[in-house]
């Protein structure tokens, strides 16, 4: 069965600092990987997706993710965090065919001035 682990429940960073959110997955075949963001009171919005090819994937709002097959990880990164990035971030894994998408428990990001 597929699963996703986000080891950090809560992270605090200073505005302008770099960010890395960790995500590890378990899946028997080549996965499709996603990062979603959820602002307070909002639905989830797709930040980026990885289907195949390059291991560094660009997303919206200046986010990128590095897929490392050997470590079963897809960490989310941003070089310089803005106060508006404060939100909860979810990693998810799925696959073509069956299409079931499983979410991690999320990482809540706090940005301090």
């Amino acid at each position, binding site marked *: 069965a597929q699963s996703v682990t986000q080891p950090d429940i809560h992270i605090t960073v200073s505005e302008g600092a770099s960010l890395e959110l960790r995500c590890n997955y378990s899946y028997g075949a080549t996965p499709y990987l996603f990062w979603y963001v959820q602002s307070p009171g909002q639905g989830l919005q797709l930040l980026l997706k990885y289907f195949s090819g390059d291991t560094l994937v660009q997303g919206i709002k200046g986010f990128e993710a590095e897929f490392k097959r050997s470590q079963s990880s897809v960490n989310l990164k941003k070089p310089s965090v803005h106060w508006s990035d404060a939100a909860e971030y979810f990693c998810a894994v799925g696959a*073509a*065919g069956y299409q079931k998408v499983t979410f991690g428990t*999320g990482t809540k990001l706090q940005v301090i001035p």
Partner: protein
Amino acid sequence: EAGVAQSPRYKIIEKRQSVAFWCNPISGHATLYWYQQILGQGPKLLIQFQNNGVVDDSQLPKDRFSAERLKGVDSTLKIQPAKLEDSAVYLCASSPTLAGLVTGELFFGEGSRLTVL
């Protein structure tokens, strides 16, 4: 392009009452999902439809939850009778296809927040 529409946004009921949530996916998206998100947790898949057929309902508490997708478009999720632990946000999402395959890329509605007293 219109997004995924859900209603109602908020609902407060007492335990043992019933409630229904409605979802209208993005036009042309064949796959529709219902997720339950309890406060502080990630979304948990309840049921997945492909057109009007059920693909996965393994985590749907079938003794009290039911869902249908009429004509492969709109969907309704019902809870009867509700329990305190059903308090959550119910998220509907739809997914497009790419070269005939469903990608799993989800487009979410804003959710329906249920409070059971």
